[in-house]
């Protein structure tokens, strides 16, 4: 029996029912035993040791805990870990490859889209979901897509610029057959 807080050997009398779930995290298949009440954010942070996903508000408002669930942004602080059984989760740690940053990460750095960095992973994942659906967003599109993510240091102007910067770069890198993207870039 495993506890998520594994260094502490659980008292045998405290054994609680757990469920075994299998999910794909950042492309890697993982099997874990979790208490049914465990929140996804805590599974990611404590169980999988992926501390780039932050918890801010506990009420689905701030978006610091945003991860992608089958490609869609969700607030992992109000989702149960067991709900991810058989699904795919992407966290900030899954954005960059070993050698290369994702254009969204580059954009946030280049446009000074972060200060304390606490809301940043969630912002970037919301942006990723947007750009996958809409590679050529307007400023308003970006503002709307990020409206579930709060920032207290930076304000939003540079964050929006960062996402537009990334969108332009991703269109640039898109295969030549993608004519829509080329037109977008030309305009």
């Amino acid at each position: 029996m495993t506890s998520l807080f594994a260094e502490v050997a659980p008292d045998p009398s405290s054994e609680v029912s757990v469920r075994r779930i299998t999910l794909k995290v950042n492309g890697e298949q993982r099997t874990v035993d979790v208490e049914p009440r465990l929140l996804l954010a805590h599974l990611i942070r404590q169980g999988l040791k992926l501390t780039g996903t932050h918890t801010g508000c506990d009420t689905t408002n701030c978006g610091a805990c945003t991860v992608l669930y089958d490609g869609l942004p969700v607030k992992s602080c109000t989702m149960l870990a067991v709900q991810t059984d058989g699904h795919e989760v992407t966290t900030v740690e899954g954005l960059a490859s070993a050698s290369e940053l994702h254009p969204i990460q580059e954009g946030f750095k280049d446009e000074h889209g972060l200060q304390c960095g606490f809301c940043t992973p969630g912002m970037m994942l919301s942006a990723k979901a947007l750009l996958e659906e809409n590679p050529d967003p307007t400023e308003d599109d970006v503002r709307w897509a990020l409206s579930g993510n709060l920032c207290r240091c930076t304000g939003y102007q540079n964050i929006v610029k960062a996402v537009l910067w990334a969108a332009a770069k991703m269109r640039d890198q898109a295969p030549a057959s993608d004519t829509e993207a080329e037109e977008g870039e030309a305009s």
Partner: protein
Amino acid sequence: MTVDEIKIGGLGASRRRVEDNRFIRGAGNYVDDITLPGMLHMEILRSPLAHARIKSIDVSGAWAIPGVRLVMTGEMMAARNLAWMPTLSYDTQAVLATDKVRFQGQEVVCVIADDPYIAKDGCEAVIVDYEPLPPIVNPEQSMAEGAPVIRDDKENQHDNVVFDWEVGDKDGTDRAFADADLVSDMELHYPRSHPSPIETCGSIADFDRSTSKLTVYMTTQAPHIIRAAVALVAELPEHMIRIVSPDLGGGFGNKVPVYPGYVASILASILLERPVKWIEDKTGNLISTGFGRDVYLRGQMALRKDGKILGVRMHTDSDHGAFFSDAQPSKFKIGLMHSAFACYDIPAAHLTSRGFYTNKAPGGVAYRCSFRVTEAMFFQERMVQAAADDLGMDQAEFRRVNFVRDDDFPHRTAFGFLTDSGQYGKCLDIGLEAIGYENFLKEKEEAKKNGRLLGIGISTMTEPLGAGNSREYDILGIKMFDSAELRVHMSGKAILRTGAKSQGQGHETTWAQIVAHELGIPAEDIVVEEGDTDTAPFGMGTYASRSTPVAGAAVSMVARKIRAKARKIAAHLLEVSEEDIDWELGRFFVRSSPDLGVTIQECANAAYTNMPDGMEPGLENNAYYDPPNLTWPFACYISTVEIDPLTGVWDVLHMVAVDDCGVRINPMIVEGQIMGGLTEAYAMASMQFITFDEEGNCVGSNYMDYLLPTAWETPGFELHEVVTPCPHHPIGAKGIGECATVGGPAAFVNAVMDALKGSGVRNIDMPLLPDRVHAALTEGRDISGAPPVRTDS
């Protein structure tokens, strides 16, 4: 050949931030990211009532839960003389309540368990029997005759007054009013607001019995102050306490005070001899930790017909909650409220201030501002606009008539501050030009004919940033200097440590730029570390925009000490006397033969491999900097708005910011600070406040009730700059992190009030919620936002 300062990331380079490399990968290291072997988890049970006597606490239910390791009550703390702790303002605060609870959310019981879920279960199993007492939610109730004494724990405290304080020249001000052609007045409430960094507060206390050393990882903006406070509370010697402030997810003043959760986690770790982690939830953060503002301000301005201000009277009643836990300089009870009107040439002024205890969370912290300066500047600019209207004078012209002129510096303000530099008129002109002032006034008149309500608001101010000097500024008696320590390695690369603590300001980037400017060592060759009291030099931390004015100055000074030693080494290497060499960025050379020189890197190498006879080896030093004065940045913020008369909703049409913060170390970061500050200014003007109902229930205890603007609501900002170097700062820089939060709100509110001009409305308290604006507009009356609010409708 001299190095190119911008290329090496020196002064003026918009260098991309070093710290971003980890943040964009999710590889930051915040307190909650730290896991220690054998670590336990603590949760706090808080009071549901604002004011109540504790009749009994039954913790047996908690102890019965498997996995619960410790349950701590106030009684247990009292047995160890830890039930109360000193605040940073010479008051006391309950760690865990013993006699009664004094605000909703006060800490009552702590449960420590194997994991946080079990600890929460433990809190739910505790039964506390309360006897409710009448709650007090504003100063008016607090000062009323027969009001219950909230702090009956304190000897000699027979009322709810925290302090009664005054500053200025009463007689001179009375004379000014006697000479006035017109007296204008203003009365308003600056609402309670929470700094609300996205990361809440938390700590991991780790007491090691074998060494008797206590290590605490903690969300603190001021690790050394905390170490001093912990030494006091826990009765441990300083060298046995190590406070580590890792990456902070924002601070804004919220992470300056000492909180009960920190102290409780420390005691728990000492008792259990295991690391104990406490991470506050958002509600705990919003209802119990350092709020900002909550001040009732009223005042009068004595005016001459031609627009000259002759004198100002101000009075403030501030609501401090149940404990006076502000972190204010000890000499100034209402912070730097008396910096109000500093940009105007006013002959006489007088301020009286009273502070009150209420049944609300303690705080009154400097929320993204220098000690109460936000309230001061907001009141100033609301008063100025009202006075201009009363005189029938253009609001820009009224400011221009009264500004301290460029050639009047240094200027002693009526309250005794010494302002030293600025180009106020120039900043205003740039702002007016950018917003298209004259055109907008015409457009506004045209729109009015069609029933549209347009308004323009100006806010101009200079504010005192960067406490101390040590003559006047201290916290708990510790003078407000700051420090830097620089070690240059043999290769010419270096490590810099300071007594400040970044929480998003980008010190790892900008401090290296200052060293690059002073020594010509590329910024990328300099590592910056902060926040660990075992390694960082003693400093007072980061708040009140004091990093660049104080610690940043220390960075310059320590680099200059290094340069002075390197010069001796250069003379030795060049085999000339010290007087015969000159410095250009990154290199010493022989004056008579400029091709003959040595680089700073060569000097660094020689400091370890080839020093002159008799010279102490190595190339490292430290500097403690006590600034001669505060720095005085100036800002002009202008906003235009349109109100929808049917709903009271107002939209920002255009917002222009002109900031003069002296020399800019990293223009990109400076602009980032301004945009962030303007966003918070817009937040406070439009939606962000915490209020209370008549039972003392906090309305705004989570992000569903406490509204923060998102990317969708927040307007865009247009930034402009003026540079008037600070005459006493080593590189001419002034503080900037908070100017926009301080000066911004009045620009939005003045714009809305301008749109309502002529409707009989003089003031609407912030935030300017649509229903307030609508009520003011339709009923032609002022709207007060003071608590209690009705929550039953």
